Structure formats: structure tokens, C-alpha cells
């Protein structure tokens, strides 16, 4: 009997290897196995024979774990152990380094072009993302082996964007130019997204993975930037005594290339390390959701009591845009780590509080903002700020409704996820509109 227990233990360990099957699933499968064994034993088989047949009926271990992994891809995202054959493990690294070097060189080309055309900073700031993010998209296109059709489509989108923003006759110091500079990277980020999901745009799970990727990428990039800042700072301090002032020029070369290369390195890190550690974005979300909930609640009550006293201007609207974006981030990364079948709990109540308070606050601000706009008319900046605000407001309002239904156990958590992933094209459409339609509409002012 002891040997049967050993065999079951070994089988269980094999099932758990790989991370697709978690402890409770293993328990469920083991219960099945034991029941099958005792049924077979009662029909006259010896224990070890019964074990063999029961295991066989349950199916090959790798096929079962693969099937579990497909269903619970969120788990893999946390701890998949990719088994690299030793000889192949260098290739992804080399691919990554190649693309990082490519964008590092391209950024220097951009710098030289900026120097030649003499419109340096404005042109460089606006177009810099065109020298970096398409490379990241190409990196994923190669990594995912996306179909040629998609590669051509994405390439043409980038080409159209690059041509459009450079052919627009912007007035000097035009605010639409600045709007394009802010929104173009986001448009390109969506291009990266298409490459990231390998052209599988319909799949809600793939889109959710891209959302997860975005959060983790931001965090890795920030970490690399911190490391880079420490390195450059120390270099300057160390070399100062022997080469006073001589380090500045070196930094002008090193900094842009390093910043561009880090975009690719961070993306590679997210992909390679998602198996090693827990995702960071959900952890930060768990820490900050309650704090934001308290802050927003206090602010909402404060505004409600004192009334919207002071004059609202565009800057404040932008502050509120950022606030709503942060709240949306809290919701997104909260639900991305949510156990998809888990019951609604305290975390959902906190999320509801945060989102609810943010909506009330924003509604108060919007009302006064609308009054101002009707007084002074539309400008490109106001349209952009207001549009984002409305988009976020609609998204969060529906989110509140879905969280309420979730808490009332009227709808599963997947609806919330589907709503968020389904909303991505709306954001994408909006930023494309800001980049391509707003400048002509406002006569490139």
C-alpha cells in the first residue's frame, strides 16, 4: 500500500511541475485518480495494476498540464518554467541585443537629422518615438513570427504616420504639434500591441496579456532608467577630477542610445522574467488601491461640501485626466491578477470605492469645464483633454456598474475583463484621431 502512496505522490509532483496546474487542481485530479483506483481494485485488480490503468485513463501528464495551461494562462504568466534546451537559449538574447542595438543606432541618426534640419528640439521630441517603437514592434513581429500580411499592414501604418506628422505644415510653436508629440508614442504603442499579440486581435485573453505586458514594461523601464541614472551620475563624479567638463559630450551620445535600447531590453526582460517573479504591477496595485480609495473619497467629499470654488482651467483638467488614467490602471492591474473564478471580496469593494469617488470628482470638474468651454470656445488642447476625459469617464462608469454586479454575484469577473479589453480599440481610435485629424481641423495652430 505504501508503494501506491509513493506512486501517487510521484504522479502528483509530475502534474504540478510546469505551473499550469496549481495545488487545488492537483487535489481535484488526485481525488479522481484515487476514486478510479478504488473502483478498479473493487473489481479485482491489484493496487499497482489499478494505479497504472487509472493514470492511463486520466491521460498523459504533459497533455493534461498543457490543457490546464491553456485554460489558466494567467498562471503561466506568473510562473511558467520555460524549459530551454541548452543550445537554443542564446538565440532570444542575441535577437534582443540586435534590435536594441538597431534602435540605439537609429536614435543617433535621428539626432544627426535633427542637427541638420536646424529645427532641433521640436522635431526631435515629436518624431523620436518613430525611431524606437517601430523597432520594438518589429522585434515582437520577429519573435511571434507574425504573418506577412500583418507585417506589411503595420509597416504601412507606421509609414503613413511618419509621413503625415512630418508633412503637416505646423505653425511655429503650434499646440497641435505638441499634441502630436504626446499622442504619437501611444499610437505606436498600439502598433507594438498588434505585433505583441501576433495579430490575434480578436482574443480578449491576448489583449489582456498585452495590458499586463504594458504595466510590467513600464516598471522594468523605470527600474532600468534608475540604474542608468546612477551609472551616469557616478561616471560623471568619478571622471570629473581627471577630465573636467569632458563627460558632457559623451553623455549626449550615451544617454539617447541607452534610453532607446532600454525600450527593447525592458520588453525582453518582461517576456523572459515573467516566469521568475510575481508580476509587479498587481502588487503595486494591491498596495495603492486602498490608499487611492481613501484619497479620492476624502477629495470627493471635500469638493461636494465646499463646492467647485476656484476657476477651473485646462491644467486642472489634465490633472484629472491623469487621475482617471491612474484609477483605470488600478482597475486594470487589479483585475489582471484577479483569480478569474474567485469570489468577489474586499479588493473589489475598495476598487469600487476608488472608481466611484473618481467618477464623482471628475463629473464635478467636467460640469464647470463645459461651462468654460461654451464661454471661450474649443481649442485643440481643450478638445484633446476633454475627449480623453470623456472616454475615461464612460469606461469607468461601466466599470462601476460591472463591479456592482460582480459584488451582487450577478455577473462573472470575466465581463469586467472583456469590457476593458474591448475598450482598447476606442482608446486606439481616439489617439489616432488626435494625431491625424486634430491638426488639420485646427489649421495646424
Amino acid at each position, binding site marked *: 500500500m505504501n508503494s501506491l502512496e509513493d506512486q501517487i505522490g510521484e504522479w502528483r509532483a509530475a502534474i504540478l511541475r510546469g505551473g499550469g496546474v496549481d495545488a487545488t*487542481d492537483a487535489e*481535484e485530479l488526485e*481525488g*479522481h485518480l484515487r476514486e478510479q483506483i478504488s473502483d478498479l481494485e473493487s473489481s479485482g485488480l491489484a493496487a499497482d495494476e489499478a494505479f497504472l490503468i487509472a493514470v492511463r485513463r486520466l*491521460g498523459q501528464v504533459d497533455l*493534461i498540464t498543457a490543457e490546464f495551461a491553456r*485554460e489558466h494562462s494567467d498562471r503561466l504568466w506568473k510562473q511558467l518554467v520555460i524549459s530551454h534546451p541548452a543550445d537554443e537559449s542564446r538565440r532570444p538574447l542575441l535577437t534582443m541585443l540586435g534590435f536594441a542595438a538597431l534602435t540605439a543606432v537609429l536614435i543617433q541618426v535621428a539626432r544627426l537629422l535633427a542637427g541638420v534640419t536646424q529645427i532641433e528640439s521640436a522635431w526631435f521630441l515629436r518624431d523620436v518615438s518613430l525611431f524606437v517603437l517601430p523597432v520594438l514592434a518589429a522585434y515582437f513581429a520577429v519573435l511571434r513570427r507574425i504573418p506577412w500580411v500583418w507585417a506589411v499592414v503595420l509597416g504601412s501604418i507606421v509609414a503613413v504616420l511618419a509621413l503625415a506628422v512630418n508633412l503637416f505644415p505646423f505653425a511655429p510653436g503650434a499646440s497641435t504639434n505638441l499634441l502630436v508629440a504626446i499622442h504619437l508614442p501611444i499610437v505606436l504603442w498600439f502598433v507594438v500591441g498588434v505585433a505583441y499579440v501576433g495579430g490575434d486581435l480578436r482574443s480578449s485573453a491576448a489583449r489582456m496579456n498585452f495590458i499586463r505586458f504594458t504595466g510590467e514594461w513600464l516598471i522594468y523601464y523605470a527600474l532600468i532608467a534608475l540604474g542608468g541614472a546612477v551609472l551616469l551620475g557616478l561616471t560623471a563624479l568619478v571622471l570629473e577630477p581627471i577630465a573636467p567638463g569632458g563627460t558632457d559630450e559623451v553623455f549626449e551620445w550615451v544617454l539617447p542610445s541607452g534610453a532607446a535600447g532600454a525600450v527593447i531590453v525592458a520588453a525582453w526582460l518582461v517576456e523572459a522574467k515573467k516566469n521568475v517573479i510575481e508580476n509587479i504591477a498587481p502588487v503595486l496595485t494591491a498596495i495603492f488601491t486602498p490608499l487611492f480609495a481613501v484619497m479620492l473619497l476624502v477629495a470627493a467629499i471635500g469638493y461636494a461640501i465646499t463646492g467647485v470654488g476656484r476657476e477651473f482651467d485646462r491644467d486642472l483638467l489634465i490633472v484629472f485626466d491623469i487621475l482617471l488614467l491612474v484609477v483605470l490602471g488600478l482597475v486594470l492591474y487589479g483585475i489582471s491578477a484577479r483569480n478569474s*473564478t474567485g469570489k468577489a471580496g474586499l479588493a473589489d469593494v475598495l476598487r469600487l470605492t476608488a472608481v466611484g469617488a473618481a467618477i464623482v470628482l471628475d463629473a464635478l470638474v467636467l460640469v464647470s469645464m463645459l461651462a468654460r468651454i461654451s464661454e471661450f470656445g474649443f481649442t485643440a488642447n481643450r478638445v484633446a483633454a476633454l475627449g480623453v476625459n470623456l472616454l475615461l469617464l464612460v469606461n469607468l462608469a461601466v466599470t462601476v456598474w460591472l463591479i456592482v454586479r460582480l459584488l451582487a454575484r450577478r455577473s462573472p469577473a*470575466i465581463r469586467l475583463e472583456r469590457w476593458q479589453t474591448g475598450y482598447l480599440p476606442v482608446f486606439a481610435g481616439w489617439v489616432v484621431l488626435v494625431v491625424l485629424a486634430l491638426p488639420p481641423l485646427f489649421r495646424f495652430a
Partner: protein
Amino acid sequence: MNIDKDLVAAMATPLVLAILVEGTSYGYAILKRVRELSGGEVEWTDGMLYPLLHRLERLGYVRAEWGVSPEGRRRKYYEVTDDGRAQLADQRKQWATANRTLGGLWELAAPTPAGASA
């Protein structure tokens, strides 16, 4: 006669939901019921049932709860939800349509082969 793998996969969801409509059940018992109903002709790798059940749970078609078996082991019981019933009704319509469509053709083409009539 063994039923084609793809067909089994297509049947899986309505089959499991229909069995759960008969009453709350658990993995092993669901598989036993499948064998019983099909007279062993629906070949199913037992382990594949569980990812399917988890998917149905995620989609809100079934509810799962850990309970205790009569022998005192922990066991996960599944219960169909209202959404699950609606889904089953929908799938049932689709199967009926498929059945009718094929049935119409087969009646025209040839008489029912011996032993295959319901």
C-alpha cells in the same frame, strides 16, 4: 464505433452542462455518467474534463464548491447556473439544427444503415 475526436470536443460543453442540469455533481461522477449514456462509445481522456469544467466556471456557466465525499476526502462539486442553463438551451438549438440539416440529406441519399437508427 468510436466517435471522432473533434466531434467529442464539440459535444463536451453541452454534454457536461446537461449532466449537471440533472443535479450537482463532481468530476469522476460526470465521467461515469458520460460512459453510461454513450455505452462507452464517447472516448474521453478523463483529465481533459477538469480544464473544461474550469473554463465553464470562468465563463459563469457553473459554480464550484469544495465539499466532502462520503469517505471524508475533499471533493469539488459543480452546479449549473442560470447562465449555464441558457447556454445549454442555446447549444441544444444549434445541435437540433445540425441534426435536422444532416438528417434531411441522409434521408434523401440513402436509407438509414442498419443499427444506426435511434
